[in-house]
C-alpha cells in the first residue's frame, strides 16, 4: 500500500507539463531510433544523451527512460516489415514477425507486437513498483564490504554473460575500470594517471566516451551493412500500404496472444533484474519458453504467439532492469550503464539511499514509465500507416548523419574539442575491440561502476585496517562471496570439462 501511495505522489511529478513533454519526446525519438536498423537502444541513448542537458535531472531521466523503453517497441517494426531487427532484442520478433507479414498480415503483426509490448511492459512496471523500494531497503543493510561484493558480482556477471569468451570479458572489464581511474582519486581528490595532460585531470568525460564507444563505433560497422541493406530492400515490396483499421486484431487473435504475453511478461521482468541479462536475453528466454507451449501455427512460420512472447518479454525486461539500477545503483546492461552515468552526471547517487533522499525522483521516474508506456503505445499505433516511409531511409544515408550527430553531441556535452577527440579515439578503440570479439558493454558498465567499487573497497579496507576478514565475517557476505566465486570459476570449470570431453572423444 505504501508503494502505491508513493506511486500516486510520483504521478504528480510525472504529470507535470515539462515531464509529459519530455516523456512524449523520448517516446517518439525512441521509436524512431529503435526502428532504424543498426542503431539500437545503447547507441540511441548515448547519442540522445546531450539533448537531456537542457532539462532538470528528473525530467532528463524521464526522457531517457521513455527513450530506452520505447526503443523496445521500435525495434520490432523493421524486424516485422524488413526482416532487419532494429535492435538485438527484436531478433526473435523477426523469426515470426516477418513470416507473418509475408503471409499478408503485416498490420496485425505490428499491432500484436505493440499490444504485447504494452501489456508485457505494464507487468514489468507493476513488478518494479512492488519490489524496487523493498530492494532498496535490503540495500540499506549493506555496508562497504557487501557493496564491494555486490559490485564485483555485477561486473563479473556481465562479463560472463555478454560474449562467448570470459577471458575477453575480464580484459575488457578491467580496461574499463582503468580508464575510469584516470583523473582524480575518488577519496583524496589527488590527481592520478593524468600523465601531465591538463585535460586528463578531469578524467575521461563520460558522455563523449560513451558516444564514441557505442555511437561512432556503430557507424564504422554500419558501413559494412550497406550492401546487405540495399539487397534486402530491393527484395521488398515498397508498395505495401498499411492502415490502422486493417491492422486491428480479431478477438481470436487476442485470445492467442494473451497467455504468452502474461507468461513472458512475468518471466521477462525477472530476467531483466539480473545483471548482464537485459532485454535481449529476456526476449530470447520468452521466445524459447513459448516454444514449450502450444501455438496454433508452428513457431517460426508466422505464429502470432511468437511475436507476442518475444515483445512482451523484452519490454518487461527493460522495465525490470530499473529495479537494481534505482535500488542498488547497479545497471543490468550497457544501456542501464548509460542511464546510470546520466544519473551521476546530474548529481544523483543511485543506490539504496536514493529512495530515501530523492523519493520524488524515484517514484516520478517509475510513474513516468506508466505514462511512457501509454504514450508509446498510442504513437506506435498512430505511426503504423507511415512506417513504410520511415523505414525506407537506407543505412548508407544514415552514416554521415550519425557521424555528425556523434561529433556535435560530443562537443555539446563537453563544450570543447577535447570531448570530440575523446569520442573519436574511443570510437576507434570500441570498433577495434568489437571487431576482435571483445564486447564493449562490460567496459561501459565497468567505467560507470568503477568509482563506486573503488570507494567501497577502499573504505572497507580502511575500516578493517587492511584485514580481508571484513569480506567473510557474516553469512550474507559469505553468500555474496560464494556467488562471486561461482561466477568466476564456472567458465574455468566448464572449459576444463570441455577439454576432458574432447580428449575422451579423441581417445
Amino acid at each position, binding site marked *: 500500500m505504501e508503494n502505491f501511495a508513493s506511486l500516486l505522489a510520483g504521478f504528480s511529478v510525472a504529470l507535470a507539463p515539462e515531464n509529459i513533454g519530455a516523456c512524449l519526446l523520448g517516446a517518439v525519438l525512441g521509436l524512431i531510433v529503435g526502428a532504424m536498423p543498426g542503431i539500437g537502444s545503447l547507441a540511441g541513448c548515448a547519442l540522445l544523451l546531450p539533448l537531456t542537458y537542457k532539462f532538470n535531472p528528473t525530467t532528463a531521466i524521464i526522457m531517457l527512460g521513455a527513450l530506452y523503453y520505447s526503443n523496445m517497441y521500435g525495434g520490432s517494426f523493421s524486424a516485422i516489415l524488413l526482416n532487419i531487427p532494429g535492435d538485438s532484442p527484436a531478433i526473435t520478433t523477426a523469426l515470426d514477425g516477418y513470416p507473418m507479414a509475408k503471409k499478408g498480415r503485416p498490420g496485425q503483426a505490428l499491432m500484436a507486437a505493440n499490444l504485447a509490448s504494452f501489456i508485457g511492459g505494464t507487468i514489468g512496471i507493476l513488478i518494479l513498483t512492488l519490489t524496487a523500494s523493498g530492494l532498496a531497503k535490503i540495500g540499506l543493510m549493506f555496508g562497504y564490504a557487501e557493496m564491494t561484493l555486490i559490485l564485483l558480482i555485477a561486473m563479473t556477471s556481465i562479463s560472463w554473460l555478454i560474449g562467448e569468451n570470459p577471458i575477453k570479458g575480464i580484459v575488457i572489464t578491467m580496461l574499463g575500470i582503468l580508464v575510469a581511474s584516470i583523473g582524480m582519486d575518488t577519496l583524496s581528490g589527488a590527481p592520478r594517471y593524468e600523465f601531465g595532460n591538463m585535460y586528463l585531470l578531469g578524467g575521461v568525460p563520460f558522455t563523449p566516451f560513451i558516444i564514441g564507444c557505442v555511437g561512432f563505433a556503430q557507424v564504422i560497422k554500419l558501413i559494412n551493412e550497406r550492401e546487405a541493406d540495399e539487397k534486402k530492400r530491393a527484395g521488398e515490396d515498397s508498395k505495401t500500404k498499411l492502415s490502422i483499421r486493417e491492422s486491428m486484431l480479431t478477438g481470436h487473435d487476442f485470445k492467442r496472444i494473451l497467455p504468452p504475453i502474461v507468461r513472458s511478461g512475468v518471466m521477462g521482468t525477472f530476467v531483466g533484474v539480473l545483471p548482464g541479462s537485459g532485454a535481449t536475453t529476456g526476449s530470447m528466454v520468452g521466445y524459447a519458453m513459448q516454444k514449450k507451449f502450444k501455438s496454433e501455427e508452428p513457431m517460426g512460420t508466422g505464429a502470432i504467439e511468437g511475436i507476442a512472447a518475444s515483445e512482451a518479454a523484452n519490454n518487461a525486461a527493460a522495465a525490470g532492469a530499473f529495479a537494481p539500477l534505482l535500488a542498488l545503483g547497479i545497471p543490468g546492461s550497457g544501456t542501464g550503464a548509460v542511464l546510470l552515468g546520466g544519473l551521476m552526471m546530474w548529481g544523483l547517487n543511485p543506490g539504496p539511499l536514493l529512495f530515501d533522499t530523492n523519493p520524488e525522483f524515484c517514484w516520478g521516474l517509475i510513474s513516468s514509465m506508466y505514462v511512457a508506456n501509454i504514450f508509446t503505445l498510442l504513437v506506435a499505433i498512430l505511426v503504423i500507416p507511415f512506417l513504410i516511409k520511415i523505414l525506407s531511409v537506407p543505412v548508407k544515408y544514415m552514416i554521415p548523419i550519425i557521424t555528425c550527430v556523434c561529433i556535435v553531441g560530443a562537443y555539446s556535452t563537453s563544450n570543447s574539442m577535447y570531448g570530440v577527440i575523446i569520442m573519436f579515439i574511443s570510437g576507434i578503440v570500441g570498433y577495434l575491440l568489437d571487431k576482435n570479439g571483445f564486447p564493449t558493454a562490460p567496459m561501459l558498465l565497468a567505467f560507470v561502476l568503477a568509482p563506486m567499487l573503488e570507494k567501497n573497497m*577502499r573504505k572497507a579496507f580502511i575500516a578493517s585496517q587492511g584485514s580481508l576478514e571484513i569480506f567473510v565475517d557474516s553469512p550474507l557476505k559469505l553468500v555474496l562471496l560464494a556467488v562471486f566465486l561461482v561466477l568466476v570459476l564456472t567458465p574455468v570449470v566448464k572449459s576444463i570439462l570441455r577439454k576432458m570431453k574432447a580428449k575422451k572423444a579423441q581417445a
Partner: protein
Amino acid sequence: MENKKKGFNLQAVIPLATIIVSLVFIVVGLKDYGFWKNQPTPGFFPIIIAVVLLASSIACFIQIARDKNSSEVKYNRNELMVMLGAAGIILCTFLIGLVPSCLIYIFLWLKFVEHAPWKVIVTIEIIMAAIILGVFTAWLQIRFPVGLLGDMIF
C-alpha cells in the same frame, strides 16, 4: 570478411596493447601513487586492477596464439573512410568551424561516396542544418567553434 589465419594473428594485437597498458598503470602507480601507507593510497585500486588485466591479457594472448582454427579479422577500406571522414571534420573545425565542417562532410560523403541524388543531398543537408542550428545552437545554446576563418570574419 574473414579468412583463415596465416602467421601472426592480428587479434593478438589487442591483448598485447592491454599488456602494455597494464604495465604502464602498475609502474606509474607504484612509482607515483603508492599502494599502501597505513591505509590504501590512490594507487591501491588501479594497481590491483592492472595486475588482473595483465594476467588476463597474457591468458588471452596465449589463447589466441594457441587457437589454430580461429579466423583472422579483415579490415576494409570503407571502415577507414568513416574514420578519415570524422578526422577530417575535426581538423577542418580548427579552420572553418564545426557546423560548416559537418555540412561539407555530409555533402562530400553523399555526393562522392554514396552517389546520392541531389534531392536526397539537399533534404539531408536541410534536416541536419535544422538539427544542429535549431536543437543544439538555439535550444541547447551551444556555441560551436567557428575556426580561424570565423575568428577573422567575426
